[in-house]
């Protein structure tokens, strides 16, 4: 039952040299078809959930009980194993929404739009975790629950962007129009989020410690003993995010499928 224009597996065919028969290379867009996506997702999900739970558990337990206290920050430093991965996924969730929104606008794949919709609440919760753990960490370190530090402020603004994005999805009845408008909001919002990041930096140089793992320089500012459990925890949060998004996307797809079938049925009567 695949749709001729949108959902069809776009198979790329390459002629094998001199033989005249074809090797079919399946394209990634095959999974843009909701039914195929559901099939794949249900196969992948158990593994993903298990890996995510394993990594998060190992990362957190190793981090909390297997690493020494920091000589300056004491045991409070251990909240890093929650704070940093959550902050990382908070930003990556928005990146994912940006990419899936672009795919929806260009190629009109429903799965892509619904994945963006599914990722938003997860990103919102990750942002909230990062903010709350940051406050708990900041209280003993800086002597205050909240400071208008550029990073904290940027996350607060990101939180507002997530709220607006989710509210717009909820407010529009027609699902395709909602997908269109939220996609544009995501694009425009991304530009303004980056702009806000620099504006906030200009506005107030902060208290926050530097990046834990600066990707650009390849170096790292935390010692090895903290580094390995942190990386495992980050991988765990990444897998958890993926599992949650797959699960929620599946729910959204089933909801749309119910609506589509019901609408056709009503027309038949």
């Amino acid at each position: 039952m695949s749709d001729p224009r949108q959902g069809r597996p776009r198979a790329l065919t390459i002629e094998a040299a001199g033989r005249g028969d074809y090797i079919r290379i399946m394209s990634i867009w095959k999974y843009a078809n909701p039914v195929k996506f559901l099939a794949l997702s249900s196969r992948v999900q158990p593994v993903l959930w298990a890996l995510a739970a394993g990594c998060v558990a190992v990362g957190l337990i190793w981090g909390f009980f297997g690493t020494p206290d920091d000589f300056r920050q004491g045991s409070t430093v251990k909240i890093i194993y929650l704070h940093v991965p959550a902050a990382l996924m908070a930003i990556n969730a928005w990146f994912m929404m940006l990419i899936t929104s672009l795919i929806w606008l260009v190629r009109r794949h429903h799965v892509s739009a619904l994945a963006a919709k599914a990722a938003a609440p997860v990103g919102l919760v990750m942002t909230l975790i990062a903010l709350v753990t940051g406050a708990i960490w900041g209280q003993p370190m800086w002597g205050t629950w909240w400071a208008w530090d550029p990073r904290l402020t940027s996350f607060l603004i990101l939180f507002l962007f997530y709220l607006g994005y989710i509210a717009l999805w909820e407010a529009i009845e027609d699902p395709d129009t909602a997908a269109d408008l939220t996609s544009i909001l995501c694009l425009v919002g991304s530009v303004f989020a980056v702009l806000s990041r620099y504006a906030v930096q200009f506005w107030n140089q902060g208290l926050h410690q530097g990046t834990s793992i600066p990707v650009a320089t390849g170096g790292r500012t935390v010692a090895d003993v903290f580094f390995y459990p942190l990386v495992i925890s980050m991988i765990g949060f990444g897998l958890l995010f993926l599992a949650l998004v797959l699960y929620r996307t599946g729910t959204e797809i089933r909801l749309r499928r119910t609506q589509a079938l019901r609408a056709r049925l009503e027309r038949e009567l």
Partner: protein
Amino acid sequence: MIALLIRDLRLALRAGGGFGLGLAFFLIVTTLVPFSVGPEPALLASIAPGVLWLGALLACLLSLDRLLALDFEDGTLDLLLTAPLPLEAAVSVKALAHWLTTGLPLVLAAPVLGVLLNLPVAGYGWLVVSLALGTPALSVIGTFGAALTVGIKRGGLLLSLLVLPLYVPTLIFGAEAARRGAAGTDVSTPLLMLAGITLATIACMPFASAAVLRMGLR
């Protein structure tokens, strides 16, 4: 295009058009601030640039939900879409009309309200300059928000939720320029950033607004 501008201005000026509502709101907010923080002149002087900027921003926001929603309700938007006028131009003109009827009066009223808040003498000029540079961006970004929520019933609150985060950079640079002006320090960096944001939004946002409007009206 000029016809559209004249029509929007005329509508705003007639009874029920909401012209002056923003100004009155600006006045009330400014009056309420000393009641909430206390009448101490030094304190008021230090927060005056920020309060005036925030008041102007909120006053701008107030009139956004009638910017496109009224035209949507009476069918004008559908007809404009079928008219030989590029929609990008139409939304730009509507943003301009919004600025002329909301932003510009706020810019002119700000120094008067500055007196109420004991704004330092050095600050008046830069306050007006920063508002004059920044409020067009508020109107253009607001038009985008209005276009996003045009088909939604009672979309006013949602509109605020969508637009306010987008106002952050404009507010930061605008208020910073006004603050530095009042403190007598160099204003060039925030002022140039503010001008950059305004020019960039004027150049780019109408395309986003028009695209969103086309999708929303389908």
